[in-house]
């Protein structure tokens, strides 16, 4: 064993000396290789963490949200609408939700106004999300005025700011008292935006939704399962878009790496010829080149992956931020909890390390099995 290790060490010594003779080219390759792994790993880590986080935090979303559609558009639910369906077995609670959008022309941002039923907000007061706190420089006790769609100015006192850790779901929220909400939007009395239904048995959710559609043909039930699936598909899609954009870069790197690995330069051929002439066996030459492929590809994978991990989970994915921000003025600044998919990392490892190591070996095997004299003259 000791002899085997010593032999491998000598091969590595020789490989490093050989790599050092083409220092610029090999360092360039390592850098581009590492950069590619970094981008791919960043996309994979970011989307997987966001997907897992979405599934976790949205697990408590209402089992069914019932919307009413008029001419294909979401409309307000009038009083007595939900009572029409009577009592449905399995439905524990039916509660109207009051929420809407407000465009703040001061910072050119959209907010989500909401009158929560399960949180006490005093009249004339609001509770704001952390992004609003940042964009408008608000703090508890401050006053803020919003011009309503009817032109009146409404002034509110900020009672509290929602915790920064919940920013992923609460960044743009403005919570207010129901009466303030109705007065601000001139919401018709008794009307609600939509209805949240609580169903105890998960097996019953679909049946309840069908009963709702039978009783209220103009309604559209949105199930919790659909919400979760939408978010899973959103992130799959986004990952796909990023990978599609990157595919040109991946292809270019593939050609570059293949060219570098599969095509032997005259200098490399001469090197193999000399090694064979001084008594190296074909197996030794292949082992040396195997080490060369492995050293470059494994180091590129490790450095690229570690940099991607730090980028996504310790530096807030700063390189992706401009892409994800879109036109939004309010953007949540959240720290993702790392959820690493082992299979994803293994796939990345397989597709980055193995092809290069294998590509290095083929031409070497061909050159190493030919007569040294022919190779050197070659």
């Amino acid at each position, binding site marked *: 064993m000791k002899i085997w290790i010593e032999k491998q060490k000598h091969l*590595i010594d020789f490989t490093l000396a050989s790599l050092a003779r083409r220092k610029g080219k090999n360092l360039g390759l390592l850098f581009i290789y590492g950069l590619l792994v970094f981008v791919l790993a960043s996309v994979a880590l970011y989307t997987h963490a966001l997907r897992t*986080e979405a599934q976790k935090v949205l697990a408590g979303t209402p089992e069914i949200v019932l919307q009413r559609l008029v001419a294909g558009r979401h409309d307000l639910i009038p009083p007595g609408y939900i009572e029409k369906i009577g009592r449905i077995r399995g439905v524990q609670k039916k509660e109207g939700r009051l929420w809407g959008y407000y465009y703040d022309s001061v910072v050119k941002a959209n907010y989500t106004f909401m009158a929560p039923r399960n949180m006490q907000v005093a009249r004339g007061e609001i509770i704001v999300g952390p992004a609003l706190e940042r964009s408008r420089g608000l703090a508890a006790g401050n006053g803020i005025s919003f011009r309503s769609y009817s032109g009146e100015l409404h002034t509110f006192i900020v009672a509290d700011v929602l915790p920064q*850790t919940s920013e992923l779901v609460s960044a743009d929220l403005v919570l207010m008292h129901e009466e303030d909400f109705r007065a601000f939007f001139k919401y018709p009395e008794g009307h609600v935006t939509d209805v949240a239904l609580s169903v105890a048995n998960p097996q019953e959710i679909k049946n309840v939704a069908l009963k709702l559609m039978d009783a209220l043909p103009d309604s559209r039930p949105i199930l919790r399962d659909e919400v979760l699936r939408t978010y899973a598909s959103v992130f799959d899609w986004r990952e796909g878009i990023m990978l599609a954009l990157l595919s040109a870069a991946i292809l270019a790197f593939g050609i570059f790496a293949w060219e570098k690995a599969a095509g032997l330069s005259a200098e490399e051929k001469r090197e193999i010829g000399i090694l064979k002439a001084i008594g190296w066996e074909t197996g030794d030459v292949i082992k040396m080149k195997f080490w060369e492929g492995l050293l470059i590809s494994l*180091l590129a994978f490790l450095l690229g992956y570690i940099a991607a991990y730090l980028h996504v989970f310790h530096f807030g994915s700063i390189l992706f931020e401009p892409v994800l921000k*879109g036109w939004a003025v309010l953007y949540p600044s959240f720290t993702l909890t790392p959820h690493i998919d082992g299979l994803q990392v293994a796939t990345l490892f397989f597709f980055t390390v193995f092809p290069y190591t294998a590509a290095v070996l083929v031409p070497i095997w061909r050159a190493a099995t030919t007569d040294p004299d022919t190779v050197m003259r070659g």
Partner: protein
Amino acid sequence: MRRLLLMRPANFALSVFALALGAFALTFIDAARLRAANAASVAATAALVERLELTDLVLFTEARYTRHPTQADLQSAFQDHPVAFEHFPTGSLMPPPAGILTAYENLDRKAKAPD
């Protein structure tokens, strides 16, 4: 530094690999540590979602169908007129919610036709 320069190349390379592998393993340990540290805040966020009956993440606030993709009208991408172009860059990052479409159509066909 002098010792490092005098090191045998193979030993130097193997040390670099050992360091990189150690850092690679550390990312998993760090991930577990951060998961444990953030567990309480994730649970608090999930509780807030339940309490306020929220349905969506605040990822894009520019349009209502990107702020609340799960609550958007089915034809919201063509909200202005049937062949309207997409206004917002997010449109290219955000797919039509396939899950909703399928389930909505399914329910639609299973429901009895109104009299």
